[in-house]
């Protein structure tokens, strides 16, 4: 049985379960089961799907992270959705033909829409609508691009061809634009800055942590050959997009007062770092960089959003001033948050550092030293707002009046798993480096 069939089956089955405790167990065992299936080499039996070593590793990571998130989740619909998202991730990551890629990407999109449609208040509704409209626009553009591509190639049933005529190139570029909506690349980022803040943090975490990284790896895997073939005109475009995305994300994050808004812009800035994989596509390290970035990011981003979700459950936005002397109130949450923020900032011995390091090295290796320098300075700039959050948590002595929820035991386990992931991939780079994507 392939992991996809198993997970999709379990997801359908989970509709029938209404008891949260049982559902949780089913979901966790489903994830564990899929990890076992992946390890023992069961793959999707259709010829339009195939998985490389890197993809399999990433799938395992996605299952671990989703499993950890489910552990502390109490809403049945969200748990079911994580199972669906996991199965869609497998399809998207393993797609080898345009048809399978588009179908699995759309499946992922629709699942994200269903995820955010679990609305509790007007604010979440606004976030969901924004995301839905942006997503629909992206879908439309994707189909337009695909149509042009098919028009030029007469085939849906193959990977992106390397040699294309004008229509084909325009088609692929349009498809990439559509995918960049999901990756929140500037100027396709505006929905994310609002939606990540307005949605329930857990949903924002799943969207920005899991869905985004899966789309990143899949897009890189699927389009890198095309980008490499057309490097002469793609590299200036990707360099511009990457630098604008990271700089804008970092600069706007500096001025925010809401913690989720800071993280939303930080997520956009990270999209800029991720795009460097396409800039450095000529280097053999580019795929390592993308995979490392995806793995590091899925741990850090999910952890931070899930933690904020649990701390502010039903209490509304956490402002920066609410975090004053937070370490005194809840030292463990403060520690979890700080470690992940330091990782996002790119401080060593944490996954975020090595991810950035490998990515920037790929850029240097591809010969873009100035781009690497600007990226590193951007990373240093980002320390400004991460260190500032940590400053509020530890250095301020005046406690805020915000009543944070206490973490439950399962939440602690979730956070410990995610922190261990961040730490492990901060030291044991050997697990990822050199693996084929």
């Amino acid at each position: 049985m392939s992991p996809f069939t198993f997970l999709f089956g379990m997801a359908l089955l989970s509709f029938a379960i209404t008891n949260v405790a049982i559902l949780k167990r089913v979901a966790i065992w489903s994830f564990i089961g899929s990890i076992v299936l992946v390890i023992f080499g069961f793959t999707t039996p259709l010829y339009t799907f195939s998985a490389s070593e890197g993809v399999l590793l990433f799938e395992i990571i996605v299952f671990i992270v989703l499993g950890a998130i489910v552990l502390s989740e109490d809403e049945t619909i969200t748990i079911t959705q994580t199972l669906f998202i996991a199965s869609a991730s497998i399809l998207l990551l393993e797609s080898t033909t345009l048809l399978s890629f588009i179908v699995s990407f759309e499946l992922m999109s629709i699942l994200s829409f269903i995820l955010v449609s679990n609305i509790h208040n007007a604010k979440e509704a606004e976030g969901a609508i924004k995301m839905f409209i942006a997503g629909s626009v992206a879908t439309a553009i994707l189909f337009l691009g695909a149509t042009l591509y098919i028009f030029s190639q007469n085939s849906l049933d193959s990977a992106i061809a390397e040699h294309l005529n004008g229509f084909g190139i325009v088609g692929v570029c349009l498809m990439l634009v559509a995918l960049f909506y999901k990756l929140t690349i500037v100027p396709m980022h505006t929905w994310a800055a609002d939606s990540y803040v307005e949605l329930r943090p857990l949903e924002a975490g799943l969207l920005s942590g899991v869905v985004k990284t899966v789309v990143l790896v899949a897009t890189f895997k699927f389009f890198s050959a095309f980008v490499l073939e057309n490097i002469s005109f793609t590299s200036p475009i990707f360099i511009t997009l990457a630098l604008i995305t990271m700089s804008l994300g970092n600069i706007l994050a500096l001025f925010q007062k809401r913690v989720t808004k800071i993280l939303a812009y930080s997520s956009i800035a990270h999209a800029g770092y991720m795009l460097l994989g396409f800039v450095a596509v000529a280097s053999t390290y580019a795929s390592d960089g993308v995979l490392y970035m995806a793995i590091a990011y899925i741990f850090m981003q999910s952890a931070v959003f899930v933690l904020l979700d649990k701390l502010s459950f039903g209490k509304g936005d956490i402002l920066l001033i609410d975090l004053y002397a937070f370490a005194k109130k809840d030292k463990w949450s403060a520690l979890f948050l700080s470690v992940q923020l330091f990782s996002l900032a790119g401080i060593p011995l944490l996954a975020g550092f090595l991810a950035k390091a490998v990515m920037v090295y790929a850029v240097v290796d591809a010969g873009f030293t100035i781009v690497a320098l600007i990226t590193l300075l951007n990373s240093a700039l980002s320390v400004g707002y991460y260190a500032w959050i940590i400053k509020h948590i530890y250095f301020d002595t005046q406690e805020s009046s915000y009543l944070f929820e206490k973490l439950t035991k399962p939440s602690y386990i979730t956070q410990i798993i995610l922190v261990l992931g961040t730490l492990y991939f901060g030291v044991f780079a050997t697990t990822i480096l050199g693996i084929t994507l």
Partner: protein
Amino acid sequence: MSALIVVFFPIFFSFLLYVITEKTNIARFVALTLFLGMFGESIFLYFHLPQSGFMSLGHFLEIDYFDFTLTFAVDKLSVIMLVLTSILLLLVTLSSWHIEKSSAYFSLLVFFSGAIFGVFMSTNLLWFFIFWELTLIPMYFLIGIWGAEERVYAAVKFFLYTHVASMLILLAFFLLHKQSGTFDMTLIKESVLVTPALIWWLLFVGFAVKMPLFPFHTWLPDAHVQAPAPVSVLLAGVLLKMGAYAMIRMVLLMLPHQAQKYVWILLLLGVISLVYSAFMALYETHLKKMVAYSSISHMGLVAIAMATLSYDGLSSAVYEMIGHAFIIAPLFLIAGFFHHKTGSWQMQEMGGIMQKAPYISLIFIIAGLGALGFPATMGFVGEISILISSIEKYGLWLIVVAFTSMLSASYIIWTFRRVIYGSMSILVEKTDFSISKMEFFALIIFTFFIIVFGVYPQALFSIINDTFSSYTSLGGGV
């Protein structure tokens, strides 16, 4: 394996230490024991070193791809730094024996000790960088939590400023790897690089911030003034030395031909740092700021010594680095002590402390004399050897070093006049200057080193000279 333990055990153990000892006062004993162990390990390494070159301490996480292998190896220079660091860590522990929130404080200190040992022990540039950056985290918290009124500003500025500089260093390391195919600093010397000048400049600016050299020094006075006194000692005694160590190791010895070509900038910035900071120290009325500028001025002296690129010069640079650590530490500790007791930083509000706290004043005077280069102290030996080696290399105009020595004499003696001697101020009169035994003991040890190595510098020079003997055969005059 012992290298792996001595570096990573403190880093990961520090979290556990905090959890276990949070409600008690025993973290300081654990830290002291651990630092004693680290001191023992450094001494052990010293006695097992080969006559020249590196002694390998193991390879871990081996992978050829990206050369991410964690390689530990030490030579005489790194072992000297290890011994110095562990002595300072021990003395800093004693000096902060009665600090509040001691569990968190000593846990951070333990974390710092692992990271700094990693800096001096790893020969893989990427891992060197990892440990280099890791030292920022405990420092950020130590300044931000235990510092003075403006501590948050100083902590964030310190973090950001040095982090930006680190990014230049990281880029240089990447370029080195791309062009030489390795991160191993012992192999890079042999490789032919495509853009050696760019790499040299990136490294130079990156390390100049940490040393710090004018005009990259502005983070230091803030950090020094706001940090608690023992942390200032770590900043001056360990963190700045880390910059100087990296400057010698990478900017001068790893890229000898570029060093030869551009060393004038090191000399120039060294001279400017020396003179400018001496004038700033003369101008300051804030006691700790005065000491901070004096510290920068001395690092300028170290830079001048390095810029000679000669055997004598490098030896005297390392001697001065050690001397500076032992001299500046009691000055910071006592400045912090005076502020803690009187509540003031301003020298004009003090005066006549000699009458109330004669022993501490005496130590302050000895350390001050060291700072101004008085014979029979480490300061004198350092300054005179640097003066001789630099004049030998660059000619008589470097007599400016001797003139600056007069400047330092002025601000130090004037400080004695305003703080230690003179009529007793009202503030001092109503202050009780009692000091804990541990803190006093630490001060005595510092004084002991200043005098012993001042009177008998051969003890140190015989070790330091060995450090560079293997480099004399290298191209570039080093």
